[in-house]
């Protein structure tokens, strides 16, 4: 073994004392470190972004999340079944009891995404922080991923895109889906649907880092019963639900 670097040990010791001073109690800091990454810093696998959707707070007839997503990412209001739709409101009914549940449905950002498995050009990929995306530079529009997705979360752009958004490039002949507002997340903001849901008072969608044991979403997931959709497929979705 090489010579022990005492300077380094000394530094680490002092640094831990200094950091300890900022903490009020274990897991409780005087201030929250900003989550926006520095320019030039890649997405880290230490983070896994996810959402927890409380279906009991999701109101029937409200589609603020869908409208916010359309506005943020620039996809037009769907007219036909083949039109682009990144997020949709779904109402499910338990036939035996007649109980209705409302929920928003979009890409579930699986840990083992089938869309990535089937993509012949590696256009469909999972970013280090767990966000599943389409690299439209590589997408050839074959739509295998759309068939592989059990959540019907992806859409194909049939029509030419005329009004481009600076933050979210979209183009004819490619497949697209919810990006968890990756451009906003990279700036340290919340996805547009989460913000819209909080703004109207429902606060049905909670967004956060699933890998951080002290994040609000992790604390909630530890304390209440949550469900992943089609958990039988073993995809380990980044989005989970309560109340279904």
């Amino acid at each position, binding site marked *: 073994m090489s010579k022990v670097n005492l300077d380094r040990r000394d530094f680490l010791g002092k640094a831990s004392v200094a950091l300890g001073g900022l903490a009020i109690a274990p897991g409780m800091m005087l201030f929250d470190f900003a989550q926006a*990454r*520095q*320019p*030039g*810093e*890649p*997405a880290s696998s230490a983070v896994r972004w996810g959402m927890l959707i409380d279906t009991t707070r999701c109101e029937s007839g409200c589609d603020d999340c869908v409208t916010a997503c359309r506005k943020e990412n620039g996809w037009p209001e769907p007219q036909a079944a083949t039109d682009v739709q990144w997020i949709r409101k779904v109402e499910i009914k338990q036939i035996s009891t007649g109980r209705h549940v409302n929920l928003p449905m979009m890409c579930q950002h699986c840990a083992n995404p089938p869309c990535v498995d089937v993509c012949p050009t590696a256009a469909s*990929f999972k*970013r*280090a*922080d767990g966000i599943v*995306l389409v*690299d*439209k*530079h590589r997408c050839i529009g074959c739509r295998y991923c759309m068939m592989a997705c059990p959540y019907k979360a992806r859409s194909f752009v049939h029509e030419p*895109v005329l009004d*481009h*958004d*600076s*933050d979210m*490039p*979209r*183009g*004819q002949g*490619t497949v697209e889906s919810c990006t968890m507002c*990756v451009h906003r997340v*990279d700036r340290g903001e919340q996805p547009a649907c989460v913000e819209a849901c909080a703004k109207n008072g429902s606060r049905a969608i909670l967004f956060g880092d699933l890998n951080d044991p002290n994040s609000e979403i992790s604390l909630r997931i530890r304390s209440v019963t949550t469900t992943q959709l089609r958990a039988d497929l073993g995809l380990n979705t980044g989005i989970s639900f309560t109340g279904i």
Partner: protein
Amino acid sequence: MRAFLLILLLAAVPAWAGDSIVPKLDIGRGGQCVEDPAFMRTNHMKLIMHQRDETVRKGIRGSKYELTNCVDCHASKDNNSVLGSNRNFCQGCHVYAAVKIDCFECHSSRRKIPPTALASAEPASSKVAITEVGK
């Protein structure tokens, strides 16, 4: 015959080199580019191509080689875009060089205007251009 062709070729060279044929571009805001202009003329596509993979796949943002930065500086003050006519920065040169641009099939060719900038004190000419684009 070969000598004749050579003479023809040599006679044509000064015409290529003349300023009259070089596209006259509206460089937009212009100013100091991220690299030397001569380097950018030959290598901008490599920089953008490399950066697009870094940004999309690794999530690296804030590089000086981002496409949005190109558009921010070089969008014309007349139509707020790098496309539109053969004077516009990207279109003008690409038409001259007969190279198709794929970027703007998906990416925005217009400068992103923060909502606050619309109300702020801008020169009158660009204000008119912005309202035309926004309608």
